[in-house]
């Protein structure tokens, strides 16, 4: 966890320095704002990882002498087959087509998105065949 935190905080720090130099030197706002946001992208998750790295025991994947047995147990819950990503993707497709061909494409688009949202939620964390 510590390496992940340092990595992101380091990137955030570098982006922050570059942002300060660039913004003060060029006085150009678009790039300055985007670099500031880039700095936040380093600092926000980096701070989260740092906060956790000080509070949780060393994970097996961070322990250079860990044995495979230490990783035994449930790694996470992985869903099996599921149709809902496909339905959601088709919904997004129709929504985008509405941008081009006319507002009526939103009807099937939003219907599919809603259907996928309901179906995916009902499916729960371990849907389909695992």
């Amino acid at each position: 966890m510590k390496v992940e935190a340092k990595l992101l905080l380091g990137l955030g720090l570098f982006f922050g320095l570059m942002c300060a130099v660039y913004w003060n030197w060029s006085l150009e706002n678009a790039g300055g704002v985007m670099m500031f946001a880039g700095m936040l992208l380093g600092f926000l998750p980096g701070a989260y990882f740092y906060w956790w790295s000080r509070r949780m025991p060393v994970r097996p994947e961070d322990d250079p002498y860990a044995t495979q047995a230490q990783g035994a147990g449930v790694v996470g819950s992985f869903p099996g087959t599921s149709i809902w990503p496909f339905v959601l993707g088709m919904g997004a497709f129709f929504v985008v087509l509405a941008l081009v061909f006319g507002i009526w494409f939103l009807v099937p688009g939003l219907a599919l998105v809603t259907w996928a949202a309901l179906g995916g939620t009902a499916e729960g964390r371990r849907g389909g065949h695992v």
Partner: protein
Amino acid sequence: MTDVLQPPITIAGDDQPQGHDEHHGPTGILKWMTTTDHKIIGLSYTVTSVLMLVIGGLFAEIIRFQLTAPNNSLVSLAQYNELFTMHGSVMIYLFAGPFAFGGLANIIVPIQIGAPDMAFPRLNALSYWLYLTGAITMLAGFFTAGGAANFGWVAYAPLSNSINTPGTGADLWIGGLLLTGFSAIFTGVNLTATIFYLRAPGMTMFRMPIFTWNMLVTGILILLAFPVLTAGLVMLYCDRHFGTHIFSVSGGGVPVLWQHIFWFWGHPEVYILALPFFGMATEIIPVFSRKPVFGYKGMVFATLSIAALSLGVWAHHMFTTGVVLLPFFSIMSLLIAVPTGIKIFNWIGTMWRGQIWFSTAMLMAIGFVVTFLIGGLTGIYLASPPLDFFTHDTYFVVAHFHSVVMALVLGGMGGLYYWGPKITGYLLNERLGKIQFWFLFLGTQVFTFPQYLLGLRGMPRRVPIYPHDPEWKMLNEWSTVGAVMIGISTIVFVVNVGVSWKKHPAGDNPWDGHTLEWFTTSPPPHHNFYRLPQIRSERPTWDYHHPEHRSLGHGTHADEMHSLVGDGFEGHTS
């Protein structure tokens, strides 16, 4: 150190029959539509993106044939605009990125770190559907009355507004890019979360294979860059249809703002494209040199520095606009040469005194290093504003980035020859592979070198016709010859896939590989591993198969393990 020799632990459980995944669940097209398995999604990505490579390549061949003669009329001027726009768009948005981070990375990264799947399998499936529909949307422009988008793959304002580019082709381009942009963002989330949270015990960050490291940094760069592009596209759409004036002077907007937004995505995107292929080369070269990678930590820090610096270089595409801070962007762009140079040094250092096996994958990786070096060196010229003023928007720039991206194609083909046996379970034909390599490698050089010379002679990019000049004609003809050679290499690849289809079973570890993907079966089972070895270095599979030549433990000096420095004696290899 003794625990390296322990037998691998079975993690699937003895009571579970091996290969149980095929028993239930949908089959056929329904299996493809409902899968959340990262290997099948990754394979779908790979096949789709190679199809995009073929489509974009066909556009390129038409462009090159049009340019063979000065006043050629193979295509109309309007068609030519559509062709070069869609060639760039298909290759950048639909081939190079998705092939790397959606295709090979999706399959290989979880296996390399010992994970059962990506962190968010359903999000992964959604990524693919957004990518596929985005590709369909973008290419559908060819079937509309006004034709496909024709404002160049960069869509500069004010050319891209509704007055200068009316029609549905441009809107389809924006829509397709919105979809593929979100697909990339979701893949970036997935890669980052997988690498941070699903590593096997003992797989510390500094034991991850370099490919995985590069994909982690790529994932972070995607999260940094792609939302900016999506925001820019929404603004562009509002300008075109809702009467806003964000990029038009008439309403108080700033056209050059589009260039800032586009290139703030666009330059990190260059590294999003390049880093995965750097990673592939870094996996291939050590395995076929029979040595650990030279300068592992140097490679990691070089990757991180490239990513960090890539945020501060976007305006080197905008030197000639006259409104950007030249010294800042010039210094930043030149600085990127340092970590890139470290990488090239380390690739050569890995091959140095190794026992090189010139397989197709290795040839492709060496071709990648050479071609990328050419593209990188000409990039250093372009980072200098005075030289850039001279060559901006000429064929010199075209040749520079085609050297770079053709290097990526070489690296990607190397990746397919290297990991293809792991993914399908069958080896590709080496003889055809070597024919493909020489056509691709030599074709790339024959294709780009005349373009460098054309650029220095002042030929602008994106022109369908040019003045009668024997020298320009000759150079353009040579470039077309190179393009045809590249086309032949692609045909050889397709033939090779057909010829080798289910011919020569690869076995689990055909190359005597270093990393975890070579420990499992080919193709890997559902959730990837029945058992895992102890992980005590960045090459656990090698350590398991070659305990007498295992990698250094903590606190061991290289002198104590002579075989690691690659002394070149036969007796020290497997």
